[in-house]
């Protein structure tokens, strides 16, 4: 029996979701294309079509700023993706062992994901405070003076550290799920063949975890290439634009006066193309290494 086929009820039930989804997700995603071709500046009744003007501006007048933002975004994305993956795989393998405190470790490492970006950002603003934070106190002990987040040479590295600190628990949980789906017999077989420790990790665990690595890498790339919230709290893009990622650049453009929001839309399109390309490349290489069992 197919009770729904000739009935109006299924559509009625779908309606609220379809309306909300179209208005607040679908339209904004597609609408970016349109707004990037206008001089929309916040006044919904008065804006004009300007063709590719916004894109021209991004690649001529604002070339330095945009290119700097793209460069920082790529550094941020690649470093975070590599570090976070490597660390969280190791952590997942470690907490997957039968240790007395396993669940304590797991919860502690995962905790920042519950606290949210604002709280995490404020915690580290305090810890990295150049006057009264513990880090600068510690450095003073060794006669090192540093403005930490205020120093354009190391601000990006510190932001990357906070990003990994805040999100590695999330990837760890995903890897843990992957590890627990690997059949134990495979390890026994490997053990009989003389592989244990590092060898069984390298030849059994890693290959079978590859599909999880793909998922993690793609999630991280999408996340980091668009990042601006953590930067908004920690540095606001400064000092000297040294932490100005593309996401942050777009965000500031939306709210800075004089600059049209249409221009921000054009930058968001550029961002979309970059995300699409990077995800495509990463997916291609990562999927090729996946093994079935």
């Amino acid at each position, binding site marked *: 029996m197919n009770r*729904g086929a000739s009935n109006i009820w299924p559509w009625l039930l779908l309606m609220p979701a379809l309306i909300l989804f179209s208005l607040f997700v679908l339209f904004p995603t597609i609408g970016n294309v349109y707004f990037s071709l206008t001089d929309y500046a916040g006044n919904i009744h008065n804006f004009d079509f300007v063709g590719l003007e916004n894109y021209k501006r991004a690649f001529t007048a604002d070339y330095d700023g945009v290119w700097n933002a793209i460069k920082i975004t790529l550094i941020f994305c690649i470093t975070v993706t590599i570090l976070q993956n490597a660390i969280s795989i190791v952590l997942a393998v470690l907490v997957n062992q039968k240790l007395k405190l396993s669940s304590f470790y797991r*919860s*502690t490492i995962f905790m920042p*994901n519950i606290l949210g970006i604002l709280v995490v950002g404020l915690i580290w603003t*305090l810890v990295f405070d150049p006057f009264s934070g513990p880090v600068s106190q510690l450095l003073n002990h060794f006669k090192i003076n540093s403005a930490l987040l205020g120093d354009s040479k190391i601000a990006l590295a510190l932001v990357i550290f906070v990003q990994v600190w805040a999100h590695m628990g999330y990837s760890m949980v995903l890897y843990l799920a992957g590890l627990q789906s690997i059949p134990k017999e495979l390890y026994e077989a490997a053990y009989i063949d003389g592989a244990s420790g590092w060898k069984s990790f390298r030849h059994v665990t890693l290959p079978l975890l590859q599909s999880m690595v793909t998922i993690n890498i793609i999630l991280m790339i999408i996340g980091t290439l668009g990042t601006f919230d953590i930067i908004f709290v920690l540095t606001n893009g400064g000092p000297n634009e040294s932490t100005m990622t593309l996401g942050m650049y777009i965000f500031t453009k939306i709210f800075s006066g004089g600059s049209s929001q249409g221009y921000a839309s054009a930058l968001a399109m550029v961002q979309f193309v970059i995300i699409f390309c990077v995800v495509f490349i990463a997916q291609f290489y990562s999927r090729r290494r996946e093994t079935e069992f």
Partner: protein
Amino acid sequence: MKRFLSKSLLPNAVLLAVALIMLIPMLQIVNVALKSNAEFLANPISIVKKPQWSNFIEAWTSAEMSIYFFNSFIYTFFVAAGVCIVATLAAYPIARKHVKGSNFLYMLFLSALFLPAGLVPLLFIMKYLNLMNTYHGFILMKIGGGLSVAVFIFTAFIKGIPKELDEAAAIDGCGYLRYVLTILLPLMKPAIMTVGMLSAIGTWNDFISPYVFLIDKELRPLTSGLYMFMGEYTVNWPILASGILIIAAPLLIAFIFLQKFIVSGITAGSIKG
């Protein structure tokens, strides 16, 4: 015993070090929150000598947190409840393929997980529909944004509920909507807990959307209230730290009791294959 010790020594040492790196910054916030400003300025990293519980009261009153707390609760409750109900209603016809193109609809909801949200068009539509700076506008927008993951998790869950149940209910004369609300919904409790927790945490913690879509101070939730407060009182870290703890407390309590649902939601939400 000796072998056991040496085998678990290294993992324990590494994990303990990591746990300390996680905990020390959080404990430092607690430490600072309990100090008087004078003690903090004189000795910012020593362990607090005389806990100043009044810092919490001062943070609560000087940042006008009672309004923000109320707003945070309203947003969190209605967004989480809204996402669960709207997504359940949509997931049932999709999971049972009761409409033409249900596969397409499913993919449409899923695709949003990979597409970046356009802030500018979203601002436009919020203004166009007069939803800027209103409770209902903000809640509706957040529900819309949370649907993708929810529909994905619910559809998978409903596919695991036997179809025979639908048929038995139909024979007994149970209507379509009544079936979903009175029979299906209670069965979906684990999935609803998971999705509800995820959207509640997301809404409670969100500070970008309130910053963008809510202008009046009276409408803002805790997060953006605290962010504004930070701008006014950069110098007084003990009060700010107390404010941070006030925001984090409900989350930590929820995490301790409902960890299972949160973790299962994260795993389910990301393994979309």
